[in-house]
């Protein structure tokens, strides 16, 4: 960013809670069914229908709130947000307003600026204040494609109407696009981690909006903020913010003013565009939803949920760094998701080598998993098997290089390390007698080279190592070969 400027970013995330049924009726939340298949009088907004709160949505909302260190209010109020839109069957959305489900979270995340190639520089902690997390229903969607006479008609699919959402709003605490990027990734991961949401942006079950403004460093007042929408991946969001920062600075420096507006990210053209302007400023006329009593959750309920939460990613990441002596970046990578973190801990225990396990998982296993499109919990190589393989290497039974080939075969065939080593006859020869015999043979059959070496051409040492390894068909322990060869040659 240009010198002398500061960016101020606040984020709003809508995460779909992973319930089986909708928040105010019994309809399924399944994705991809026939349009309007999962609807009933309640989610169609038929005259006379009334909402009934799904307790599971409250439970998952509580998991999400606690995972993000928010305080859950024992009493919260649903409110109607009134506006007209064809995908909103009742003409209002049941949401929460002045008494939300949870408030005032403070989260510490790790964040790093990236270089040109997108590689993190230095990981630093950042405190993020989360204003609130509240519960609300989703709207349906308008369909303009793939149906008859779309030039004359719009269609509406209300399958999504009434899907439970958690809206998570931060204070304007981010100062760069990468901070926003790291925060959204953290939230995604935390929600998945506690089972509150699939948090998959591509499926649309996590959506993100960013409020971006710029000001000259030293200014107390915030600049005019622009709301960014259509951010369909975390990366798009980061790029959209980056673009928007540059746009706003350029605009101000050239004597213009930032307009308070909503802009859409256009990924194809890599720019933000003004969204079709709203005809009038919205006044949502919030008021308490008379069809639902106040939502009361007990202290006991909150504590039960808290006790049932797994160790959260942030805590686990710190523990990995301290307890296993991992670099922070490695800990971050190994706690991308709960399955991988669990996998790592089991493998480290089985290998009795936490750094070794970390390296093998990061460099070898993740590559295979990625190629196969699998998560760690679905890995054909179980963590205890990876541990066994690492022990074979540690004990010198096979070389590290052999180990890599073995792992690939383990992954492909599902066989154990021991079985593959046995089948391939891969056992490494470390027996000095056996190796000495091979060395003897190599030296005898290469008298010329031996003479050269003895006359001072020590660079030829590698030639002998290669010959010995070749004669042993690669089975000789290179370390032992080195030692014995030096001894023989220098005799």
């Amino acid at each position, binding site marked *: 960013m240009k010198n002398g400027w500061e960016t101020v970013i606040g984020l709003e995330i809508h995460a779909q809670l992973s319930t089986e049924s909708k928040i105010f009726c019994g309809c399924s939340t399944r994705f991809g069914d026939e349009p309007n298949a999962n609807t009933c*009088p309640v989610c*169609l*907004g*038929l*005259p*006379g*229908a*009334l*909402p*009934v*709160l799904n307790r599971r949505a409250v439970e998952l909302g509580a998991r999400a709130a606690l995972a993000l260190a928010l305080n859950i209010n024992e009493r919260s109020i649903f409110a*109607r947000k*009134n506006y*007209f839109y*064809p995908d909103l*069957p*009742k*003409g*209002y959305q049941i949401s929460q307003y002045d008494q939300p489900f949870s408030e005032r979270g403070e989260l510490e995340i790790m964040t790093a600026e990236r270089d040109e190639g997108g590689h993190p520089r230095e990981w630093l902690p950042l405190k993020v204040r989360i204003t609130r997390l509240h519960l609300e229903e989703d709207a349906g969607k308008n369909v303009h494609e793939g149906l008859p006479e779309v030039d004359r008609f719009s269609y*509406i699919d209300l399958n999504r109407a009434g899907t439970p959402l958690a809206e998570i709003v931060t204070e304007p605490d981010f100062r760069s696009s990468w901070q926003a990027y790291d925060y959204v990734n953290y939230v995604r991961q935390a929600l998945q981690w506690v089972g509150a949401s699939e948090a998959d942006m591509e499926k649309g079950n996590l959506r993100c909006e960013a409020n971006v403004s710029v000001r000259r460093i030293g200014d107390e007042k915030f600049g005019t903020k622009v709301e960014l929408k259509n951010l369909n991946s975390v990366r798009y969001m980061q790029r959209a913010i980056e673009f928007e920062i540059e746009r706003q600075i350029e605009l101000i420096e050239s004597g213009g003013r930032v307009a308070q507006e909503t802009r859409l990210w256009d990924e194809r053209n890599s720019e933000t565009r003004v969204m079709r302007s709203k*005809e009038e400023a919205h*006044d949502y*006329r*919030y*008021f308490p939803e*008379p*069809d*639902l*009593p106040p939502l009361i959750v007990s202290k006991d309920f909150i504590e039960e949920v808290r006790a049932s939460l797994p160790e959260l990613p942030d805590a686990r990441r710190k523990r990995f760094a301290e307890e296993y002596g991992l670099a922070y970046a490695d800990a971050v990578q190994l706690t991308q998701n709960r399955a991988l973190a669990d996998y790592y801990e089991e493998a480290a225990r089985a290998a009795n080598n936490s750094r070794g396990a970390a390296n093998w998982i990061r460099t070898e296993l993740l590559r295979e998993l990625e190629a196969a499109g699998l998560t760690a919990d679905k890995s054909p190589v179980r963590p205890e098997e990876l541990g066994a393989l690492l022990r074979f290497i540690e004990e010198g039974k096979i070389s590290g290089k052999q180990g890599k080939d073995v792992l690939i075969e383990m992954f492909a065939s599902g066989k154990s390390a021991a079985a593959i080593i046995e089948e391939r006859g891969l056992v490494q020869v470390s027996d000095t007698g056996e190796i000495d015999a091979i060395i003897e043979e190599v030296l005898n059959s290469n008298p010329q080279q031996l003479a050269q070496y003895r006359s001072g051409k020590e660079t030829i040492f590698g030639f002998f190592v290669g010959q010995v390894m070749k004669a042993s068909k690669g089975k000789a322990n290179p370390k032992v070969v080195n030692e014995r060869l030096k001894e023989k040659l220098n005799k």
Partner: protein
Amino acid sequence: MNFSETDIETLRHAILQRETTTRAVVESSINAAEKLNDTLNAFLQIDRAGALRRADEIDASGDAKQSLAGVPIAIKDNICVRGLQTSCGSRILGPYHAPYNATAIERLNAAGAIIIGKTNCDEFAMGSSNENSAFGPVRNPWDTERVPGGSSGGSAAAVASGIVPVALGSETGGSVRQPASLCGIVGLKPTYGRVSRYGLVAFGSSLDQIGIFGRNARDVAEVLKVIAGRDEHDSTTADVPVPDYTSEIGGDIKGARIGVPRDLFGEGLDEEVRASVENAIEAYRDLGAEIVEVELPHAKYCIAVYYIIATAEASSNLARYDGVRYGFRAEESNELRSMYRRTRDEGFGAEVKRRIMLGTYVLSSGYYDAYYRKAQQVRTLIREDFLKAFEKCDAIATPTTPTPAFKIGEKTDDPLAMYLNDIYTCTANLASIPGISIPCGLSNDGLPIGFQLMGTYWSESNLLRLAHAFEQAQPFTERPRITAH
């Protein structure tokens, strides 16, 4: 047998003793409905085929033991009955047929009641005279030049004229008790949360409650027993046990304390109505009740508070009528905003539009605190007034309406005069308490006069018992000019 004057007990007895058939009862009711509809315009839809089919089923089963088996009932057209229209008296829902039953309807069906049709009402239950129906006003069976009251005027006229013994209406601010009073029948508004609102088309959700019309308290009790109780589809229903209302009727009422808020018997109250209600209060004294003075200091704000809260909620509840999914849609709209505007402009009547605008205004940012929030605060004060009064008495007696039925067209140009019709009734809606209107006399013009009793939460049993005692002491035997007989 003259079914038009028969109470439920007699009717049920006749069917069980096979003195008549369910079909005969239902057919006579439908014939009366059809015959009188030209005069009264009480029904918007009469379901002859469906009702007779259900009657035949009951006759064929030979089992008429459910508590309302064979009892014809009329349903206000803002309560959903599967397969029948639910127009709410509005053009905007005109062709709409409900695909599901309201919970109250499910329960009536299970009890064997037979729905003969949907009754006319003020559009979306907004009105006190039934003149706001898009399908023409209902006429009062006592004098067809006069209104039957509203908004449940069709149901009131159907019961008063003897077409059906009982009918369902709905109340947001007096819409059952006021027409009951103007038509000379009993009308009960239960405690908020007593009867499920699921399937009752919303007007003011925090006030709405299904109510019951009958020609006597016992018939009303029979129906209440069936439809009351917790419903998992309505989170605002209460998990309070449902007493056997009919068996709690009867016996003497000695020692009952009737509260009288004298302050409300002042300005605007018709002299004949005052005399008649005073007379009813004296009748209670004669029955051994103690008459005590009570105060409801905030009751005078009820119309103002009511018209803020009810319209605010209505402005939101009526947003769904946008022409997108069901009901009426204005033609020749080629763009979304104009489709919305034209649909709502052509679909809603003047009073509904007035209330949507009022409600939108009081919820608007900058006005919310001054109107909606303030109204909620006064609502709490009104509630507290009542709770305090009920420490001194078991029921509060007042007139139901300031005057007997007025002429059609008399108040249509003066909404405020119209709104004042609900001055005695809408406090009970604001306080969420039950109220019942009981006929107590005729004016010199031969128009019925009613008084109301209001009780604390869940005191329907007590109100019905007091109403029944009054009926025994001073039977109201007058019949309207237009009857099914």
